[in-house]
């Protein structure tokens, strides 16, 4: 569910010529600038006495962690709420829990982000706690060590998940030579290299106002939102170092990798290059993906491979975009015996989509779903804040969702057919298989015995 929602957001793209809204807005986003100069996007919603604030430091992600300190930003996200200012780890956590304030940080490849959710009554305390966490984190020995152990335990747990191993291997080969190829969650050995000083340095150098994006939704007025944001963030350092260009072309295209595991079902991941959200083909790509495998039930892959053939519990395709690359991926699993058939059918459906124009109905159904389902994400203050933050990180105007229908509706059958031919070249795909697949042509397969960047 969460995954689907992220995909949806990823797919909503930007255009330079958004027109002024002529009808009721999709989401009543207000933009404001605080006295200290921070831009904030806000949706006032007084239904429930709850406020959600979300923020991100764009560029301050795992991409900045050195190879021998993989997991640095992950460990930071786990320890920033474990003691700050006068609060030690337990008193900080206890103050949050006693007041039912949810505060969490998370590390992505491209950015470091956080989420604060509080009842209206505890807004001042929540504001203070997030401020001290960001400006005076302690990184005491005890919580850093405890979180290091928790991360190592998570890795050991993941090592028994074929799906996780598949994703890990795909990152390693598709992004070879780039920081994206490293394990953003850390490895069993690199986690032990990270010191409290490393965490402090990262905060000082990278959590800066020039990288900050903030959104708020809930039981708060414009003036209160402005005060709250300044109280939390205004004392952060102004600027970070300029980030170097890390633009990446997806590597190892056309190759197939196998990691053998004695499990009854093989996990399969396939990746292809794709277009960026700013590309003129982007909306056609989005509709093409919806029809190919993006929509779950009703998509070509799901209907053929699950509904007709019974080969899998699920198969999905999706477009993704990161700061320095973008692609289309397909993921599924099937019993070891049917892996060759699965791979053939995935390719066959791509060929059909390239060679035969989609029907008028299929095009309309895809448009109806993409536009009609947009309101379904407006379910909580947290969801509203997330939508606004994603729009900002993608450099879109706050009216973007009010106008997206014109970009989607402009796509034609021909556009979809052309973009299918441009993107779905399965001979150029990278394929990663984890399991014990049977009857697979072993000639062109690279076997990987040791998992890279795990231990």
């Amino acid at each position, binding site marked *: 569910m969460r995954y689907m929602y992220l995909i949806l957001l990823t797919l909503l793209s930007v255009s330079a010529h958004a027109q002024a809204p002529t009808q009721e807005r999709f989401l009543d986003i207000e933009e404001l600038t605080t006295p200290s100069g921070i831009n904030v996007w806000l949706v006032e919603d007084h239904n429930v006495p709850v406020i959600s604030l979300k923020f991100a430091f764009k560029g301050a992600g795992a991409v900045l962690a050195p190879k021998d300190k993989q997991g640095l930003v992950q460990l930071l996200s786990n320890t920033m709420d474990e003691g700050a200012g006068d609060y030690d*780890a337990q008193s900080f*956590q206890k103050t949050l*829990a006693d007041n039912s304030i949810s505060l969490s940080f998370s590390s992505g490849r491209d950015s470091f982000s956080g989420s604060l959710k509080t009842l209206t009554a505890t807004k001042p305390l929540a504001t203070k706690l997030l401020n001290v966490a960001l400006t005076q984190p302690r990184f005491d020995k005890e919580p850093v060590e405890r979180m290091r152990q928790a991360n190592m335990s998570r890795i050991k747990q993941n090592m028994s998940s074929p799906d996780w191993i598949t994703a890990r291997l795909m990152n390693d080969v598709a992004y070879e030579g780039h920081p994206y190829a490293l394990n953003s969650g850390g490895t069993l050995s690199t986690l032990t290299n990270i010191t409290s000083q490393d965490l402090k340095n990262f905060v000082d150098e990278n959590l800066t106002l020039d990288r900050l994006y903030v959104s708020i939704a809930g039981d708060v007025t414009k003036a209160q939102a402005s005060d709250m944001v300044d109280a939390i963030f205004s004392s952060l350092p102004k600027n970070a170092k300029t980030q170097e260009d890390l633009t990446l072309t997806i590597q190892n295209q056309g190759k197939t990798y196998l990691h053998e595991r004695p499990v009854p079902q093989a996990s399969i991941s396939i990746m292809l290059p794709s277009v960026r959200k700013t590309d003129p083909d982007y909306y056609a790509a989005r509709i093409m993906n919806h029809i190919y495998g993006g929509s779950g039930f009703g998509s070509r892959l799901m209907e053929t491979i699950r509904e007709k*053939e019974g080969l*899998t519990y699920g198969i999905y395709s999706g477009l993704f975009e990161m700061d320095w690359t973008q692609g289309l991926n397909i993921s599924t699993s099937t019993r070891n015996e049917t892996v060759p058939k699965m791979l053939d059918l995935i390719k066959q459906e791509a060929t059909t989509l390239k060679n035969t124009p989609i029907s008028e109905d299929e095009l309309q159904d895809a448009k109806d*779903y993409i536009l*009609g389902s947009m309101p379904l994400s407006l379910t909580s203050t947290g969801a509203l804040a997330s939508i606004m933050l994603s729009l900002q990180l993608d450099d879109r105007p706050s009216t973007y969702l009010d106008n997206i229908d014109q970009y989607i509706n402009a796509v034609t059958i021909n556009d979809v057919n052309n973009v299918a031919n441009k993107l779905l070249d399965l001979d150029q795909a990278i394929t990663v298989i984890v399991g014990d697949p049977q009857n697979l042509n072993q000639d062109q397969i690279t076997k990987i015995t040791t998992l890279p960047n795990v231990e």
Partner: protein
Amino acid sequence: MVKALTFILALVIIGISHAQAGIFNAQTTTLENGLQVVVVPNTRAPIVHHMLWYKAGSAQEINGYSGVAHFLEHLLFKGTDHPDRPLAPGEFSTRIKKLGGQNNAFTSKDYTAFYQTVSKQHLETVMQMEADRIRHAMPPQKHVLSEREVVIEERKQRTDNNPQARFFEQMQAALFPGHPYGRPIIGWDEEITKMDHDHTKAFYDSWYYPNNAVLIIAGDVTLNEILPSVQRIYGAIPKGPETKRHFPVVPAFEGETRVTHYDDQVNQTLWMRGIRAPSYRQNKTDSLALQVLENILDGGATTRLYKQLVVEKKLAVNVSFSYGADQYGKSTIWLSATPAPGIDVDTVEDQIEQLINDVIETGVTDTELTEAKKRMQNAAILARDSLSGPAQIIGRALTTGSTLQDIETWDEQIQSVTKEQIQNVAKQYLKMPPHGKYHYVTGVLYPQEDKQQHKGEGERE
């Protein structure tokens, strides 16, 4: 026509009860055919979350046919043979998609639920589609067979490929021998490979009726507003036979039961203990006390279990105590822990037992009780900041024997729990032998390489 209108009006005026100042302020009524209808108004966006819950799940399966309840859930997407509105296999989901909606379903031990989220203007359409499959789901044989393959793949993905899931499946089987809660919801591999049309249809014909279901609609509507269409669409389905859920007794064990797994895909030891305890339906007072105890022991990073075992003593990397009140039959308290590197699993087990013994012998403190109650009260407010969350909470409770009043007043009931009651439930349900008979199972999942070492040590206790 006039008569029908009068009847509907009467329902609107007399039949609807509003639980005053409840957590969700839900509105409810029951149709003449026995279908309970609950509306949770939420005006945040012009959308609705529409759910139909059946009071039947894997616990109602006949021995030898495990997985049938879940298989039926899948088959409800494989077409309907309603004379006026037939749907082809798969068409249910594709139609919802055309409406810009999302839909899915889930099966549990005590219930099976189907849901859609759509824009408000499509509510009647999804109501009609859902109502039609209460009695008209009839997939052709060939779709039954291909869907069985899908379920076998689902089992491999969820369970067979996952050593923790296989271990947990064995823990449940050991804790509830001969009882339907001991069966995996998805079914045993040997039995799901043999599932067929007739046995699944028999399950459908035993349980899928309006009088064995609860309709929950959360979103930008009120009961008054939608009752006429609910009445017209759902009210038209005839009442079915009375249903009654039956459970066998699970006697206390005469000796201690232990489950030991070694697995070559496992890289760290996992310790678990499942303890049988009453559900809310079975014993409200004890269940409420167990809920507060759960919060005192495992209500965050500063409550007893995590604080003592993970923060202070460094014996475990994680630890949890979880009690689910919403079961129609017996509930289970699950304790689990991952020992810290270099710490023996027996040490962790001893420490957890000692911590529980402290509660049994000296109870909990006033501060712990006050703080837990406050956290739980706040959780009730925060629960409203969601569209589907309240519908989930209400559906789970109503299909496991609670009333809407129970749900709406949950926070008040929690406030009434005393220290004495907490100590009492700890004594009654968590006290380990020699006092009383065994009603729990302990299990350890080890990495394969530990096996040789354990053999070298000789018999473990």
